[in-house]
């Protein structure tokens, strides 16, 4: 994985049983990066986690158009820039309206986007003409 850009484009059924498969791909990428000087096992965990959280998010927001739908995940590495895009065709949501978790109150839910935001440098969620795209970027230094 030197110099040249890499793009991994995956489609998996929108079922939680595929979370470990997607997470493992993130871990493998972290371990194979040649230029990364940080802690590889921590990066592996973080990529596993953001991919898992993003895919769960896509499953939750998936549209009802077809019973057996796919989640598309594109991972791009160009020099020191890692970009993950996760596509869903559901209603979508306003990512900026999601508050950080209230640490004083014990909620069962609401930590997924917080974790993604904590571990990636930038996160956006936008709609194009046919789908929503959750885009997460991280500088690999």
């Amino acid at each position, binding site marked *: 994985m030197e110099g040249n850009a890499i793009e991994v484009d995956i489609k998996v059924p929108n079922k939680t049983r595929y979370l470990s498969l997607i*997470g493992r791909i993130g871990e493998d990428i972290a371990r194979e990066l040649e230029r990364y000087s940080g802690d590889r096992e921590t990066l592996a965990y973080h990529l596993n986690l953001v991919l*898992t959280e993003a895919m769960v998010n896509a499953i939750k927001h998936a549209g009802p158009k077809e019973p057996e739908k796919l989640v598309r995940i594109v991972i791009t590495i160009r020099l020191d820039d890692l970009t993950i895009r996760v596509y869903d065709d559901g209603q979508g949501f306003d990512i900026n309206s999601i508050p950080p978790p209230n640490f004083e109150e*014990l909620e069962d839910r609401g930590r997924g986007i917080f974790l993604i935001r904590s571990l990636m440098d930038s996160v956006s969620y936008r709609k194009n003409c046919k789908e929503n795209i959750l885009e997460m970027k991280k500088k690999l230094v």
Partner: protein
Amino acid sequence: MNLEQETRNDIVILYVKEERLDAHNSVDLKAAVQKLFEEGKKNVLVDLKEVRFIDSSGLGALVSGFKNAISHQGNLKLSSLQSQVKSMFELTRLHRVFEIFPSAPEAVENFQ
């Protein structure tokens, strides 16, 4: 989900025998803990020795168990967290909520 259950001194220990505790399997853990408190058990220890990955759903299932313990006047504690798993508790400040022990025997001692 693969869970092993053991009772020691009125403490039910649930060993999570999975590498991942995530949105795919955490509902099973949540249900198992809920069932224990509904059956009248007061002290539950969840041992995460084999769990090397936890996501927000896994954390949520444990939070749910903790709240269940409170509502049944019981206790839920955790043991044997791997370092990466522990860092997720720290990131979400949940290490301040749970009592976390290095091993199941040490946690069992603490329930006395």
